[in-house]
């Protein structure tokens, strides 16, 4: 059958199973649905998402499953940790114990929780403050834009690791302080990216139409600019999470992070590394594995989201 014949057959009234006047409803596909299909087709990304869900379950439910919590010392282990402190099902220390006899499973779960929380807070601050700052700066433009972006230029050049360490020293070393430190830096890059996108959006026809119909600037930003930025904001926020986790773990590794009995993956890796010479491989192994798995999963999910939401990128 030639193409012309096929077209004719398709267009002939006989081919239409519906009676006259009824048109076949075509279901619209939103950009988000397209993105979801693309994401689900990406095996590395979906696999990583599963790993991420498992890690989150481990972080938030680990404490309740385990017979031990993260600060109780198993006195029976003390002094012979390297002999009997290894991972075992009988003692209930599934990941073994640390050098002071505390359960490593519960501690790793708690450390993973801190890492996830830091990553989430960083991303949330970036999404809220970074998006608003960038959108306002880009949309308003002119002198306001100049001043707002110079401020970001100045802030971005500050070596924050050192400032955060100073903050942790001056004030108490707490989770809140970590959140403040992470919140201070995470929005800067986002603001720049969002501003760039806003600049290319603000001269489009739909914005012009909104201005012509008398919509005020704050409303235009909220209703027309921000929704169109969401794709890039989501992608960048996901990619920001591992960066923030790295940042926090670095500080914790130096022993300047959260205070005992709370711990974090960085602090656990540091402790395990300090015990390397004592033939207790589980102390380094489990926290390290949890950390690497977390970062791997986040990178692949972020990459998958970028391919799904920003396909023109490659």
């Amino acid at each position, binding site marked *: 059958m030639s193409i012309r014949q096929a077209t004719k057959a398709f267009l002939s009234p006989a081919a239409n199973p519906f009676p006259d006047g009824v048109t076949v409803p075509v279901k619209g596909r939103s950009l988000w649905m397209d993105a979801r299909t693309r994401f689900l087709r990406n095996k590395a990304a979906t696999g990583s998402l599963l790993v991420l869900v498992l890690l989150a379950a481990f972080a938030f439910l680990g404490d309740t499953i385990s017979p031990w919590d993260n600060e109780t010392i198993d006195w029976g282990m003390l002094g012979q940790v390297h002999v009997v402190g290894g991972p075992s099902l009988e003692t209930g220390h599934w990941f073994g114990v640390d050098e002071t006899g505390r359960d490593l499973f519960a501690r790793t779960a708690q450390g993973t929780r801190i890492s996830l929380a830091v990553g989430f807070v960083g991303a949330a601050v970036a999404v809220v403050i970074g998006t608003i700052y960038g959108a306002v700066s880009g949309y308003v433009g002119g002198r306001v834009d100049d001043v707002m972006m110079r401020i970001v230029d100045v802030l971005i050049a500050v070596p924050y690791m050192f400032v955060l360490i100073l903050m942790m020293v*001056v004030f108490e070393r707490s989770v809140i302080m970590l959140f403040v430190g992470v919140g201070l830096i995470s929005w800067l890059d986002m603001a720049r990216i969002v501003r760039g996108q806003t600049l290319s959006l603000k001269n489009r026809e739909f914005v012009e139409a909104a201005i012509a119909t008398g919509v005020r600037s704050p409303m235009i930003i909220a209703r027309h600019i921000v929704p169109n930025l969401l794709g890039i904001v989501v992608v960048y926020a996901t990619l920001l999470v591992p960066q923030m986790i790295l940042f926090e773990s*670095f500080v914790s590794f130096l022993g300047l992070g959260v205070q005992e009995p709370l711990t974090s993956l960085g602090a656990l890796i540091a402790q395990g590394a300090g015990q390397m010479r004592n033939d207790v491989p589980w102390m380094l192994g489990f926290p390290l594995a949890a950390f690497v798995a977390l970062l791997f999963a986040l990178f692949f999910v972020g990459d998958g989201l970028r391919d799904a939401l920003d396909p023109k990128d490659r």
Partner: protein
Amino acid sequence: MTAFVVRRLLIAIPTILFLIVLTFTLMELAPGSPFDSERGVPQYVLDNLEAKYGLDRPAWQRLGLYVWNLATDFDFGPSFTYRDRTVNDVIAQGFPITLTYGLLSGLVAMAVGIPLGITAAIKHNTWLDTLAVGFSIGASVLPNFVMAPILVLVFTLWLGWLPGGGWNGGQWNYLILPVVALATSYMASIARLTRSSMLEVLNAPFIRTARAKGLPMRRVILRHALKPAMLPVISYLGPTFAFLLTGSVLIDMFFSTGGIGQFFVAAALGRDYAIIMGVTVLYGVIVVALNLLVDLLYAWIDPKIRYG
């Protein structure tokens, strides 16, 4: 060009001032005096100490003095815990060490990362590409504080080939582990960046033209593709060196190399604000200066940049 330099300086100077004011304010907020101690020191001794370190003056005067001394003499003032040494002494002792392996790490990261990225781009979609991409993804989840323990575990404890710490005057075998631990993740970033920008350039029309003229691939890459492909890599150099400086704190501590980082962590744990502030400001100045340098380099290489 002059206007461009001036404008960049106009951002650089406020940045440094902001950093100084920020760290100074944080120090002011710190509770207690550096001379608080368990033993009851007589008040007149405390007064004398405070007068010696200038702590009896109002904060704004001390801030002004700090900035003035820094700007005129590059003087960071005395340390609070090392009674006989100034912050400058500490920096003079530790910085050459940090600089040595920091620069080496930067060189290694570029020397391995750039060729790896270029090879992966040229051999796009072959096993070599897959290998390079796999390596760079793997290495990017291995930051310095993960690499350092793993390297020591393998090369010091298991194989016994290399020393797991110390400096020993910068002897080559003491350098290897710190340099590799610091360089790996930046090497991965550079490789990935080089690969993607090279792929983009290789798809550009001017490369097709060069190929169509019958130029051999080797010449096309060296003469035409390399320069534009290096631009994103160059703009990444500024952040890389900033990260290397930060990472050196951890390397100094983990490998006990005796660099600045070791003093910094000790100062942070012992609340020696003068050293913390001195190191923070020093690194801030270095980062700002390097970023300026990279911007200038970029403007010089890329003819498309307008510095009006």
